[in-house]
Structure formats: C-alpha cells, structure tokens
C-alpha cells in the first residue's frame, strides 16, 4: 500500500566556487570589484540562508518535548540532561521510508515529534510520494546518508548485501533483549533476512502476510455453492459467477475471476503442485511454472478465457483495477493479500452499512497429494546502510519499533490525533478511523502486544490460511530476467493466443539459452 504523501526533503545550499577572472587595463579594478561584489553578495546570501536553516534545525531540536525515553516495556531509554555532545549527536536519526509515518506532511511532523517524545531520538522521516525504489537507489548512489532505509523486496535486499550497502546486524539482533526474544520475532523468521553468509542484514518493520484467492461469499451463498476445494470446484464456481447473474441485475456482465497479470495465481497453480519463482532440485535451478507440469494449468486458464469466465483485461490490469472490479460487483473472485479481505469488506460497509457484500479468503486448490500452496509475501524490513552516521540511534529505534509503544504508534498512530486512551481503553478519533490503523504496521510479530481493536472482517481467517499454507519463494538474482520470459509466455498461453504446450516449450528453450535454469 502506498500513500501519496508529498515528499518532504531537507533543502541544502551549496556554495558556488568561482575562480578569479583575469582582466586587464584600466577597467580592472572596476570590473573586478563588480564581480567581487556579486560573488560576495551570493556568498553572503548563501551563508545567511544556511544560518537560517541551522537555526531552524536547532530550534526544532530543542522543542518542548522532554527527552524522555521510557516506554511500556522500558526498552528504549532516553537521553538525559547529562548527555555528552557525542551522545547527543547519536540521538538523531534520518529515515527513508515507503510506508512508515504520517499520512500528510503535517502528520509526519507530529509523527516525528511523537517518536522523539517516546524515545528521545530526533527523527527525520522522508517518505517519497512515488518511485520509492528509484529514490533509494539515487540516494545511496549519490552518497546521501540515511540511518535507516525501509525495503520490501528480498531480491533487492540480496543485491544490497552484495553491493556492500547494508550493515551486518547479527550481533545487534542476537544481543538485543527485545529482538532476540522469540515471542517478539519468531526465531525462524530471521532466516528471511539473512544473507548468503548466514548473517542478519535487516530487521522486520511489520508482519507481512500472504496472498490467496478472495471470493464473494455472498455470491456463493446466493447461488447455493460451496467453497471450492479442487480445481474442478473452482471451475464450477467461477463459471457460475460468470453465467448465473450473481449480482441479480438481469445482465450477463460479470466475470468469474480477475487477476493482475501473473501476479499471484499461486492458489490455482497449487492444484499441480507448482511453486512460483525458483525451486532448487538437487542443487539445480528449476522454475516449476516453466515445466511441462504447468501445461494443463495454462490450458485451464485458457479455457476460462475462451468461455468468458476470466476477465479478458487480466494481462493489462494493475492491482487497483482488479480490486475495483471486485468492489463494483463485476467479478466474483480475485487473487490478493490477506489484509485486503478486511479492507474490501470495510470499504463496502462504509459505503452502505446494509450491504450484503462479503469478501472471504479461500485456500488455494488442492494438489494431487492434497497439499495446498499459497504465497507468503516478501517482508517489509529496515536496513541500516553502511554509511549510516547514527547506528546506535538506529538500533535503539529498531528495538522501540518492536515494543508496545512502537507498535501502537506504527498501527494506531499518534495519541491525541489518531486515538485517545482512557484507563487503558483505546478510542479511535475520526482521523484515526480514516487512517485505517496503519501507519506502517497494520500487523506485527510481537505476541506480547495485543491489538487494541479487532481486525477488520475476514482478515483473521485469511491470516490463518497464510500461516497454514503459505511459504516464501526463492528469489535468485537472475529471477528478474527469468520472470520476463516466464510471464511473457505464461500470459500468452493463459489468454489463449498461444497453445500452452508451445508456450512452455518456448519458455524452456529461452530460459536454457540464457542460462537461467539448469533443468
């Protein structure tokens, strides 16, 4: 989820270095003095502006919030009055984030102040409005110094590790009373954030769920259908959605299924036991979606396309278009994130409290051995860049982020703005309701922190499916090249513009020629 918050960046002034201009003759003193005057004015202007900037920073640094630091768990300690200048420097933190923080520039400022109130750390959070990955790359490439950078792609984390961008956090995580606690972050979860050398290079920013088919439960009930379990069940349900007028408007204007490209059809490919991305088999790189076993699955999709059951725009859809089709009664099933089950239900209920709309997550199709395969999403994480200037403050913040005050801040938001607390009872304000209890941490690992409010309808059941069936995918560095080939031919086969057998054959040929698979 990206929120369109205008990018807030600190402006910096650079001084213009000028070489002396050689001039001759009688006019020399006059011309020279003019240039000198101009340069002096420019320099003076720059200095004045710089001074204003510093003074503004200083004043914001010495605001009225006490530099206190104790939170509920007592984890993040505060700087006190005896803080030395070196320590004071380390209570600053510059963060580049894609999700964490306020929803508007004004709220972001209050978010930063709230962190300072809770931890004593003076934080600056920069949240680009768009093109986050580009911003990260240009910031790192140009030598900008951040203390924490948020990421959400394990493939990219591996590239960052390879390029020496990230700090090894193994000692910190293992030595941290908070983070090494398996009730705060389950021990096995750390494997996701390890490099090839087995060291930990990042810390989770929230709990990331997974994706699965999401069905219109009210349509199922209306058409007296059972939740699908096998691929044949899925076909029957989707066909009924497309042909039996589930929205009751007397028109044949609904589709059974919509997806966004190849994005998460894992729940269906599960029927053939096929996992997305790479799977290592006897030390060899294989891509199950490019294997012969995938042919019947692509043929199944092609059949859906041919019979008008699958939304024909699935190749060009983005996820927003897919969700809109679902929300506007045009399609009975989509494939998307667990958290969105709740958001879809909530959106329709806010529009019409009497709506019969009911989105529900369903487990994918059973494989030949009865096994179901869903996709666990790549986790969101914090990394400390190798050029970070305030590593200690970053580590302190990471511990805070996984403690109760950090989790409440990252989910509910700012006390007094997003919620109020009275005798331990939380109440969301109108602003808080608008913000949907998500300031970067809609869900978390820490089992000791109980959610102040119930999850949105349908989310818990979806998350239970993730926990039961979803596994992470293996993303090797060459996947971005392989993915282009796989998706290209898979989409052609699914849309029926190429026979599935030919598509898979061509896929295998190109993947082998480019040395992207071993088998």
């Amino acid at each position, binding site marked *: 989820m990206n929120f369109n918050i205008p990018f807030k960046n600190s402006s910096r002034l650079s001084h*213009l270095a000028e070489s002396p201009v050689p001039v001759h003759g009688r006019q020399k003193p006059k011309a020279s003095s003019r240039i000198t005057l101009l340069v002096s004015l420019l320099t003076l202007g720059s200095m004045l502006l710089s001074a204003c900037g510093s003074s503004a920073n200083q004043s914001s640094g010495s605001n009225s919030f006490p530099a206190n630091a104790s939170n509920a768990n007592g984890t993040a300690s505060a700087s006190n009055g005896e803080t030395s200048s070196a320590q004071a420097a380390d209570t600053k933190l510059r963060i580049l984030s894609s999700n964490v923080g306020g929803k508007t520039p004004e709220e972001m400022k209050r978010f930063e102040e709230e962190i300072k109130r809770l931890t004593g750390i003076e934080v600056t959070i920069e949240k680009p409005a768009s093109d986050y*990955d580009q911003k990260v790359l240009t910031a*790192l490439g140009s030598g900008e110094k951040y203390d924490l950078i948020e990421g959400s792609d394990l493939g*990219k984390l591996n590239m960052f590790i390879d390029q*020496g961008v990230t700090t090894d956090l193994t000692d910190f995580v293992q030595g941290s009373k908070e983070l090494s606690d398996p009730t705060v972050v389950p021990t096995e979860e750390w494997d996701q954030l390890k490099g090839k050398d087995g060291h930990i290079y990042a810390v989770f920013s929230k709990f990331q769920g997974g994706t699965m088919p999401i069905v219109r439960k009210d349509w199922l009930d209306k058409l007296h259908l059972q939740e699908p379990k096998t691929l044949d069940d899925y076909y029957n349900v989707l066909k009924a959605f497309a042909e039996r007028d589930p929205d009751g408007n007397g028109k044949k204007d609904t589709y059974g299924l919509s997806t966004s490209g*190849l994005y998460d059809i894992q729940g269906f490919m599960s029927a053939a036991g096929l996992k997305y991305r790479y799977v290592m088999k006897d030390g060899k790189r294989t891509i199950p979606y490019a294997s012969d076993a995938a042919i019947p699955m692509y043929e199944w999709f092609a059949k859906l396309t041919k019979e008008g059951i699958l939304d024909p725009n699935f190749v060009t859809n983005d996820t927003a278009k897919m969700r809109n089709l679902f929300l506007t009664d045009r399609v009975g099933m989509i494939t998307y994130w667990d958290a969105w089950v709740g958001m879809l239900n909530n959106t329709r209920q806010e529009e019409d409290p009497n709506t019969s709309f009911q989105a529900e997550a369903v487990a994918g199709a059973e494989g030949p051995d009865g096994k179901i395969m869903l996709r666990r999403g790549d986790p969101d994480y914090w990394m400390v860049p*190798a050029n970070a200037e305030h590593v200690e403050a970053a580590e302190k913040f990471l511990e805070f982020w996984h403690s109760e005050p950090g989790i409440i801040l990252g989910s509910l938001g700012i006390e007094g703005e997003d919620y109020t607390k009275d005798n331990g009872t939380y109440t969301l304000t109108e602003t808080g309701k608008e913000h949907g209890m998500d300031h970067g941490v809609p869900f978390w690992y820490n089992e000791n922190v109980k959610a102040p409010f119930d999850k949105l309808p349908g989310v818990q059941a979806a998350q239970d499916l993730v926990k039961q069936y979803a596994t992470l995918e293996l993303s090797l560095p060459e996947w*971005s090249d392989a993915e282009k080939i796989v998706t*290209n031919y898979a*989409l052609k086969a699914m849309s029926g513009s190429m026979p599935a057998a030919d598509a898979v054959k061509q896929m295998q040929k190109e993947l082998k020629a480019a040395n992207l698979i071993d088998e």
Partner: protein
Amino acid sequence: MLKTWRKYGALYLMMIPVICYFLVYGYYPLARGLQISFQDYRLIGNRPYIGFDNYGTVWHDPNFWKSLTNTLVIGGGSLVCGFLAPLIIALSLNEVLKSWFKKTAQMLLYVPHLLSWVVVGGMWIYLLSPDTGLVNLLLQRTLDIPPVHFLAESGWARVVMILVATWKDMGYNCILFLAGIVAINPSLYEAARLDGATRWQQVRYVTLPQIQSTMKVVLLLNTLGLLRIFDQVFILRNNSTAPDVDVLMYYTYQKGILDFHVGVAAAASVLVLIFTLLLTLIVRKLTRFDEV
C-alpha cells in the same frame, strides 16, 4: 576584448546561470555517466575501474539487441508516421477556408500533446480494452469483428505504440508545418495560378518546396528523440508484449534502477548516445540539412 566586455558585460553575466545550468545538469552527469560505464559500480564502497567490461556485457546481451531492434521499429515507425500524418493534415487544413474550423481542428489536434503519457496511456488502455473499450465496440458493431486485445497481442503491440505516439504529437508538428506554410510568399501562389496550376500543383510545386526547411528541422528533431522513447513504453507495456516493445531506454532503466547494475546501465546509455549521434549525422547528410 575589453571593449566588448564593457559593452556586453551585463549580458555575459546573465549567461552565467545558463552556462552553470548546462554544466551542472547537462555535461557533468554526462561525464559521470561515462566514468561510471568504466567502473564496477557499487552503491557504497569501492568502485574499481574495469575497462570495457560493462560494454562487453551490454554488447553480448541479446536483450540489448532485441531492445535496439524494438526501438528502431517503434521509433522508425513513429518517425515516419509522425512526419507524414501532421504534414498531410497541415496541407489539408491550409486548404480549409473557414477559419473557425481550422482553429478548432488545430486546437483539438494539439490537446493530446499537452497531456502526459500517464494520462494518454491510461486513456488508450481503456479505449482499447477488449470488453468495454470503444475501439472494440465499434469494430464489433460495425464490422462484426470479435474483440481484439490490442495491448496484449504481440502482433498489435508495436502498431499501437506507433499509432498512439503519432496521435499524441501530431498537433505539435502540425503547427510547425502550418507556421512554415503561412510564411510562404503569396505572390508565388499568384504566379502559379497565372500559369494555370491546379490546387494540387500549387501544393506540389509551391507549398512543399517552400516548407522544405521546416520539414528538415522537424525530421531532425524527431530523429534526435528516436532512441529515447521511454514514457510511452513504460506506461503501455505489459509482460505479455514486453519482448516486442521493450526499448533501449527501458533496458537501461531495468539494468540501472531495477537490477542495480549501474555500470552496465551507464554503458548502455553511452551506446545509445553514440547511436543517436550516428543516426543524426546520417539524417543530416541524407537531408542535406546544412543547406537549410
């Protein structure tokens, strides 16, 4: 020298910001790009020089050559259509006597040029949709043709790219041609008419030769942008048509921004620059641009 400085000193001072702008935002990145193309570029840490290795990687990458082919096909098609279509429309509009019609047509043709590719792309994705798109509805209702997924079928992808690009920039080039036509001396037409020239002969022997210089400028400007197509492809591409429409700038974007192989991306950019230079020189030579 001193006299000149005294006389034009203020103007030279005014030029300083412009020169600084080009040095900082034009030539410095160019020089840095060239430097990076010879480095094993890491985001943080050492960046050792590795000679021509990045160029070798690009040269031996089949995706680069596939992207070059796509660029030449899509860019070349857009160049030809984007040159001929506005020329024909400008000549036609010149024949229209009703000035309100001429102005309205000009305005309507120019509007797409003002829109960003995000808007234009989104609009055409919607218009070309196989179920609710206007184009398919018209084809179905008038010619009984089953829905065509223009943006998902390889055969159509490049054609759509060329036509949409031509549609978007037609108004701009049309105005350049019309400006050239307006500047033609009316006595030439009068002389032609006295010689008994028909409307077509007036166009053929007066208008076209007289706007030759404008045509050369438009052609050269469009050639300069031929290898730099990006926004359109970024918006309209999808994984199904990627092998047919991914162009050189997208290749650079993918290598640099998505895959973090900045050195390889820089090498590809330098090659694009060299290709553009060669292409421009060829067009200059062929059109005898210096004789404008």
